[in-house]
């Protein structure tokens, strides 16, 4: 166990600086019945997940629907705490790339950008500094002080993505490489996400798209029924994953 916690601003020292680590992590939900079924039953969304995230890498998490990927993301962002096992975080802030957090239709685009930015963990100062970039990226210059309620769904999506992508946490968590808005913006938003993953940013990409994991990730983890089955180079992990998918289809 490394005793010294590197500061988040420390320069990337190769790929072996540990950012965070999960050891045999499990998370359960209580499924409570109604009035006539008082006894809560524990549903373990994660059984036993172990993984290590290194500075500057992009770690792919692959698994089928219901494998526990969403719960894993919630543990990594700190929304949920492991109910068993441990998470060791060496002082880094991890955040999910989430869109339109806290958006209110009655406020202007600018006010929504501030509110959303604050909720996503930015400081007010930081938001003000980045405001010009946020507007420009969202392509909303003329309408920025109009109420959000007057925006089209596409415009709202653009603003939501623009704020989210400017948050810039130490560890960026992405749940699928998605595109938002109209065709042009879909391309633009996907491009930004890919750029982040190819750069020195520490990213966790959760996906069931094997091609994306192979293209974008330095390492990968396969989660199956709430357990981490294997961790390593994407090719190896994906081979094992696809093998299992094939076997399941056959049998």
């Amino acid at each position: 166990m490394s005793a010294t916690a590197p500061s988040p601003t420390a320069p990337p020292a190769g790929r072996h600086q540990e950012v965070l680590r999960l050891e045999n992590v499990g998370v359960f939900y209580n499924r409570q019945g109604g009035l006539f079924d008082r006894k809560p039953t524990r549903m373990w969304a994660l059984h036993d997940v172990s993984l290590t995230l290194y500075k500057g890498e992009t770690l792919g998490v692959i698994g089928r629907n219901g494998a526990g990927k969403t719960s894993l993301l919630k543990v990594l962002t700190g929304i949920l705490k492991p109910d068993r096992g441990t998470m060791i975080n060496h002082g880094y802030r991890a955040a999910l790339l989430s869109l339109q957090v806290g958006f209110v239709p009655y406020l202007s685009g600018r006010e929504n950008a501030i509110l959303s930015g604050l909720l996503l963990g930015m400081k007010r100062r930081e938001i003000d500094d980045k405001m010009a970039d946020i507007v420009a990226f969202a392509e909303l210059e003329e309408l920025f002080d109009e109420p959000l309620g007057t925006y089209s769904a596409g415009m709202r999506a653009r603003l939501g993505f623009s704020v989210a992508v400017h948050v810039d946490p130490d560890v960026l968590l992405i749940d699928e490489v998605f595109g938002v808005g109209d065709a042009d913006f879909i391309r633009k938003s996907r491009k930004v996400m890919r750029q982040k993953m190819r750069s020195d940013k520490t990213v966790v990409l959760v996906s069931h798209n094997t091609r994306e994991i192979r293209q974008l990730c330095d390492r990968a983890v396969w989660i199956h029924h709430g357990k981490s089955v294997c961790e390593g180079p994407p090719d190896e992990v994906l081979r094992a994953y696809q093998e299992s998918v094939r076997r399941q289809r056959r049998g």
Partner: protein
Amino acid sequence: MGLAIFKTYADLRAESARTYVGFLWWIAEPLLSLGVYYIVFELILDRGTENYVAFLFTGLVPWRWLSTTLVHGSGSILFADNLMQQVYLPKVLFPIVAFLTDTFKFLVVFAVLLVFVRISGFPLGWSYLALPLVLLVQGLLVIGVTLIAAGITPFIPDLRVVLENLVRVWLFLSGIFYDVGALSADAQWYFRLNPMTSVIEAYRHILLDGVWPSFAWLSIVTVLALALCALGALLIHRFDYTYPKLANR
């Protein structure tokens, strides 16, 4: 803290933008509710002693600070579910924002009350200096009960319905429609178990009688309020990571 303030501002802005006359409702709505009680007690029941309107309003306005915040705040964590699934936030934020928005609205109405009391010619004394203290004590009490209600409700959402009725019972036990000081000593003792009795009385001492409030009773209320705040904060902190799980059951 910056987040709590901006969220409060956003909630207030959103609320005023939602209706036709906007923030005028912050004054009109309490006035309407005061008007209802005035009609019932002064005109229909004819309970009217001298200055009954001022007596009623100095009780009801602070009371509404408690009741609106408590009812609004009790659902604050419950209804923030969507937000807490997307990002980690200390859950205490939600009842605090509810408290701040309702406090702002209360202060607007309280200013109107002050004007009303002044133009009605009640004595103006040094005791007005104690007014901020009384507001602070009541504020602590309001935060305390709101934190506790907000912390429990996500586990038992049905509690909100019960709470609204409990609040109504509490209203009638707080000496808002009658003067607790005029009751027998024995009866008074029971009413003193209710901290709002002492708070309301303190407002009336200052605003209507021009005398100092009872600092002994205010100290007792302060101790109780601080204990409730601590209990509520501990409760919410204890279940900080449980609340996001409750929606998924």
